[in-house]
């Protein structure tokens, strides 16, 4: 690692200020950033740690029923504290990486990083969540801009994420056992006004909504509604773990399993 200083502010305002410095970068749980720094793929001069900011911690429920999660809340805390409000989201958090990763990694860090195989992007897009930053609110549909790319500006901090709670939802993760990320993951959520299906791990463009499946499932919420559908292999990720057509096929299988689990 190249040398840098670490600052540990205790308020969002102080963190935003510290991030105005040249080559300053936010540090969440470090579960992605520290390995990146070790490979010398990033060279910040200052890391601004967000984990000591009380107002960015914890899970609560808004008046409209939405679940609000502080941007620096760990996966382990979401797994525990969101379970009563939004079980599918808590379940997703409880299967990220391994226990030690879940005790440090944060929802803000995961969404800011937007790894094409990460789990939270599927939950955020599949729930039509709102990403709240220090200066605006971004709808999930406008937030994800392709692999490792988001609508966040330089120095912008995710302070909170708000999830409208669906009638029923389920996340199916086909584990890539070496990385512990998703080889393919599908988040299905049924709301009063329709079904949302968000897919991670599959596309070169990162997380995406499978609109044909959404239409079919909104008309008939059962796994058999997917029967006639298929996803083109074009633009799917191909690597030593799976070809593009394998991934395209897996998306449909996992979507079916998620729907079946919702009804289970």
């Amino acid at each position, binding site marked *: 690692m190249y040398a840098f200083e*670490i600052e540990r502010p205790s308020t969002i305002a102080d963190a935003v200020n510290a991030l105005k410095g040249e080559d300053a970068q936010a540090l969440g749980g470090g*579960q992605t950033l520290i390995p990146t720094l070790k490979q010398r793929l990033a060279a910040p001069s200052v890391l601004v740690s967000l984990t000591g900011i009380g107002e960015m911690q914890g899970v609560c429920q808004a008046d409209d029923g939405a679940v609000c999660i502080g941007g620096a809340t760990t996966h382990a805390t979401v797994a525990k504290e969101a379970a009563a409000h939004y079980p599918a989201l808590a379940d997703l958090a409880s299967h990220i990486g391994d226990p030690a990763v879940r005790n440090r990694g944060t929802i803000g860090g995961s969404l800011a990083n937007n790894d094409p195989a990460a789990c939270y992007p599927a939950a955020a897009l599949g729930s039509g969540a709102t990403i709240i930053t220090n200066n605006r609110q971004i709808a999930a549909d406008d937030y994800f801009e392709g692999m490792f790319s988001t609508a966040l500006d330089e120095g912008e901090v995710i302070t909170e994420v708000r999830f409208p709670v669906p009638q029923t939802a389920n996340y199916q993760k086909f584990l890539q056992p070496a990385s512990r990320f998703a080889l393919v993951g599908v988040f299905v959520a049924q709301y009063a006004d329709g079904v949302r299906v968000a897919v991670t791990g599959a596309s070169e463009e990162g997380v995406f909504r499978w609109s044909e499946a959404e239409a079919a499932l909104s008309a008939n919420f059962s796994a058999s509604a997917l029967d006639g559908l298929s996803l083109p292999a074009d633009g799917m990720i191909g690597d030593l773990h799976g070809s593009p057509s394998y991934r395209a096929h897996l998306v449909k299988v996992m979507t079916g399993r998620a729907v079946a689990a919702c009804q289970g």
Partner: protein
Amino acid sequence: MTGISMVVNGRAVSGDVEGRTLLSSFLRDDLRLTGTHVGCDTSQCGACVVHVNGKAVKACTMFAVEADGAEVATIEGEANADGSLSVIQQAFQDHHGLQCGFCTPGMVMSAAALLKDNPKPTETEVRDYLEGNICRCTGYHNIVKAIMAASGQDVSAIAAE
């Protein structure tokens, strides 16, 4: 350099570290607590698992500065006050839960974190919890068996494969 202080295995310690100093380096190089092993240094293997404020974390994937003011527990603090092995350590010995021993500090610290939250885990829960702890020697069966035994459960039915 930043001055930090923390409580490690019940003892107050302090030191001066760079921003980039990992908790694993602070423990091993500054405090000479070399029981915390660094197997991969890429957040994959879990040999470096310690507890920070009671939670299992990978010491190679946390900066020492972030543990300023924290309570840290490492494998060196696992044994009983009289020097005898803890229940978990003794179970690893009794059930052959280690061969080369490289992964063992992380395995024991993960097991301790699991049993604190879930004193009577099922075999599946033990295996799930060890997701991030890699052992290249044992094939895991005896580690799982040792942890089940340490939780006071009957392990005679678990095959030693």
